[in-house]
């Protein structure tokens, strides 16, 4: 044990201890000289009592000196420190302490049957217990992005213990830089007075991803200026390495070669291990809940601290929403051993292609290219090609989409088409030499997005310089679901399309629900969409044969036509976005007529208190896995889980990377060993600095009482 003082300058007060001695030596009261007859008795009495009274005088002197010394020492606020505490950096005295508890996803790692968070929680509680009664403290629970709540240090130990005990495991990434920064700001609160030191205790697993060592280290603002806090990192892993394997990525892409509902499922598996792993089992499961089953199993060789990508094929039995999950055998950190993916396996779309200008020469047939595009093995569209006569006999209710190509006019089918679209069907209209704008207007009664006007010839095909003069698509709505797949160089497939002739549209239609998907470079609409009832209509201002445009030979033609057909059939609308990361807000876009009633998390718990932003439900998933959406039909008020709205949430990949920082790196960042240390045993420096000033005051009182007794 060693003795330290909070106010060592006040030790000058010990000089008062010399007062009794000085009085004894210099200010001793002169005895009054008294002639006295019975001096023999006095002398004898003095001899007999001299030893006793000499002892009493010594005791009196000691009591007075002890009184003054104890009082002077008490004012200097002495503290008894354990040896390790005395070796801690910084001045002696009570410390304001901020305990940062890491609750990030990596803290779920299990070592010796216990999670790192359980250890860290114990370390934090032990650190809290070791604080002296005059040491304020605060607790910062660190889980998730951004600066967490950091209250100024207080003496409410019960509340602090409760906060530590109630700190739950999160599946989020922790930004410990922000957390220690918030803790440092709390330590610098102007209300923190009467402390000599400011300490940061960080209970964490030392994973590198949680720290940004290129950022400035935290400092505490004190009345005397910024100062570095004393930092102790309580290593919950106790110095052990944290090997981990995780599924880092999952992609499902249609694979026509496998089947009409075939997919190529590619899983990326990463490892953070010293040794390479061989024959690591990887399972691909499909379905959700009780319908989940293993579809494919495989073994893969995983390099040491590396990644490997494995692609497996699977043919779904039917189209529609589906869930794919790639999983590894559970390890010490099981939350990242599986990734799910919600996909929408395209369902079969029945399309009636009306060929308005059949030709015996196939490549001159106006429906040739479209039929070829829709009939591909990976296409979800099953086209039926008829001529104008066949169109008149066709029963539209047998189809999802009707595609009119260079049809002079719908004729008697115009009204039926209108009701077909109103009922949810899709209509695609492409122009051609035979199209009669006036009859379209008369027979379809506003079904088209815009009335047809006249044909414009941008360049005469075959003439010199025609390619340069041809119109190009200039204003393209790349965010439209049809064109969303065209990203990067793929857009070239649309932007390179040359159009020689195209139908101009009248701009005077005032009805809403019209959306121009693409325009030519002269501003004329090229691809226009309109919502009519529950269905949609798309008008293409040129032809789907090489006569007016060369789109049919462009790479964008096939996917665009398939997506247009799927979009008009409503099979494209439910396509899922990329899976989000846990903790990232996500908007739930639901079709008309239904409303989100609840979310069903991977843990099976329903969440009904959902936040909305501008009428859109915004959810922030707090754990990885498949999230399902329970919807309420506004017409029937019935609730059901809508598989099409299910979405997958992935764990934060930064938390899967369990590489640990070298203690020296971290201590150097905090300012070197003078300011920081890593407690591999998870124990904070024993701050057994017991304040002894109260004992000294007690001693002073006791000395005062003893003096009184001696004088009595």
């Amino acid at each position, binding site marked *: 044990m060693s003795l330290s003082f909070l106010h060592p300058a006040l030790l000058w007060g010990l000089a008062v201890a010399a007062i009794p001695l000085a009085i004894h030596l210099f200010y001793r009261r*002169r*005895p009054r000289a*008294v002639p*006295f*007859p019975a001096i023999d008795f*006095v002398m004898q*009495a003095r001899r007999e009592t001299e030893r006793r009274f000499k002892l009493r005088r010594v005791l009196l002197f000691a009591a007075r000196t002890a009184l003054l010394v104890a009082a002077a020492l008490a004012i200097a606020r002495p503290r008894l420190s354990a040896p390790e505490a005395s070796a801690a950096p910084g001045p002696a005295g009570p410390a304001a302490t901020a305990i940062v508890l890491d609750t990030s996803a990596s803290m779920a790692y299990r070592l010796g049957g216990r999670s790192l968070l359980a250890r860290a929680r114990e370390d934090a509680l032990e650190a809290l217990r070791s604080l002296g009664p005059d040491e304020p403290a605060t607790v910062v629970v660190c889980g998730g992005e951004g600066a967490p709540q950091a209250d100024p240090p207080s003496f409410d130990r019960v509340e602090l213990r409760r906060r530590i005990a109630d700190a739950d495991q999160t599946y989020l990434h922790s930004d410990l830089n922000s957390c220690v920064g918030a803790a440092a700001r709390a330590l610098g609160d102007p209300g923190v007075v009467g402390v000599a030191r400011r300490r940061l205790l960080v209970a964490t697993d030392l994973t590198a991803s949680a720290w940004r060592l290129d950022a400035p280290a935290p400092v505490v603002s004190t009345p005397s200026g910024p100062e570095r806090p004393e930092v102790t990192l309580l290593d919950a892993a106790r110095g052990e390495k944290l090997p981990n394997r995780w599924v880092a990525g999952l992609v499902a892409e249609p694979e026509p070669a496998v089947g009409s509902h075939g997919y190529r499922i590619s899983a990326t598996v990463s490892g953070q291990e010293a040794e390479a792993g061989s024959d690591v089992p990887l399972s691909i499961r499909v379905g959700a809940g009780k319908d989940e089953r293993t579809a494919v199993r495989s073994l893969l060789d995983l390099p040491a601290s590396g990644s490997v990508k494995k692609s497996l094929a699977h043919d779904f039995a039917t189209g529609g929403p589906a869930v794919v999950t790639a999983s590894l055998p559970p390890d010490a950190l099981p939350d990242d051993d599986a990734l799910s993916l919600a996909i929408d396996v395209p369902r079969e779309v029945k399309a009636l292609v009306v060929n308005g200008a059949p030709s015996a020469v196939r490549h001159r047939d106006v429906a040739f290219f479209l039929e070829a595009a829709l009939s591909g093995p990976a296409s979800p569209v099953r086209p039926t090609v008829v001529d104008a006569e066949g169109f008149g006999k066709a029963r539209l209710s047998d189809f999802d989409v009707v595609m009119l190509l260079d049809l002079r006019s719908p004729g008697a089918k115009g009204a039926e088409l209108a009701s077909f679209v109103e009922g949810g069907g899709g209509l695609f209209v492409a122009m051609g030499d035979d199209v009669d704008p006036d009859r379209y207007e008369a027979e379809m009664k506003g079904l088209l997005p815009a009335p047809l006007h006249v044909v414009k010839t941008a360049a005469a095909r075959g003439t010199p310089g025609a390619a340069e003069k041809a119109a190009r698509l200039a204003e393209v709505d790349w965010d439209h679901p049809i064109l969303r797949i065209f990203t990067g160089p793929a857009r070239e497939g649309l932007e390179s399309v040359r159009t020689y002739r195209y139908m101009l549209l009248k701009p005077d239609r005032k009805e809403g629900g019209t959306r121009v998907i693409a325009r030519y470079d002269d501003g004329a609409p090229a691809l226009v969409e309109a919502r009519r009832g529950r269905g949609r209509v798309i008008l293409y201002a040129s032809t789907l044969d090489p006569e007016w445009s060369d789109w049919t030979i462009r790479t964008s033609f096939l996917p665009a036509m398939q997506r247009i057909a799927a979009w008009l059939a409503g099979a494209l609308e439910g396509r899922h976005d990329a899976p989000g990361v846990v903790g990232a807000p996500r908007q739930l876009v639901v079709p008309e007529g239904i409303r989100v009633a609840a979310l069903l998390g991977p843990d099976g718990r329903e969440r009904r208190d959902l936040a909305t932003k501008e009428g859109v439900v915004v959810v922030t998933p707090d754990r990885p896995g498949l999230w399902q959406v329970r919807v309420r039909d506004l017409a029937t008020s019935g609730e059901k889980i809508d598989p099409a709205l299910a979405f997958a949430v992935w764990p934060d990949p930064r938390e899967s990377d369990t590489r640990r920082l070298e203690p020296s790196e971290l201590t150097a960042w905090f300012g070197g060993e003078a300011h920081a240390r890593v407690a591999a045993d998870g124990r904070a420096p024993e701050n057994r600095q017991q304040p002894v000033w109260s004992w000294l005051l007690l001693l002073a009182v006791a000395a005062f009482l003893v003096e009184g007794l001696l004088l009595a």
Partner: protein
Amino acid sequence: MTEAGKRLLDPEVLARLAGLRLRVRATAEGVLSGLHRSPHHGQSVEFSEHKEYAPGDELRHVDWKAWGKFDKYYVKRFEQETNLRAWLVVDASGSMGYRGAEGRLTKLGYACTLAGTLAHLLVRQQDAAGLAVFAGQVTNALTPRAEPSQVNAILETLEALTPGGETRVESAVAFLAERARRRSAVMVFSDLLDRDERMIRMVADLRRRRHEVTIFHLLDPAEIDFPFDDPTLFLSMEDARSVEARGRDVRRGYLELLGKWLEGLRRTCGESDVEYVLVRTDQPLDEVLVPFLARRERSAA
């Protein structure tokens, strides 16, 4: 005794009276008025005993009847001739000059007043009163006489005393042993602070010589109560010794020693048939003298 008389016997009042004679007179009158009977026996003519004639005896005291019977001359002795011979032995050592408070009689002053008063009373009843003053040694001595002038001589001697020298009771005892061959009443006025522990035994020896010994042990109240608290430098009044002590520290031991000493004196005097009277100098003199005289009257009767 009237209230005025009582007040007059108060030592503090007496201390304000200038002159020993005045104090003696006041005391004597106060004492006399306090006695039920006059201690004055008068000149007794009662036959006491026969004594064979010797030259120098008065012829008128020859008992002729005895001559007729025994053919020898016998001289009648009367009570008058056996009147008290008293030695007033006064200690005038340095320690007797002590008084614990202003306005109080010193022990010597008190002793002189007592002795003078007794001398006055003795001579008044035609007893012989003598005086021996010792301070280290006997410095003054007056052979007992019954003449009225003896009182004046004694008072003059006492009045002239100043305290000084050591307390040596031995010197007074030796003096009396030599000078007081006849049976006498010896009244010692002293504080007995003699460093010779055999002092009281020596005084008791006087009793063995058939003297009636009375010790008036005079102590100042401060010596009895030891009212000192603070650090005090106690100076010896008879030599150069001194001791520094905190009064409250040594009081208990002092009082214990004093008590033992007084008890020893009282016991020794009792064993030796010596009358011991402890006198506080703040004590009214009649409280000392009246009981003493009453006892003497009873013993004389």
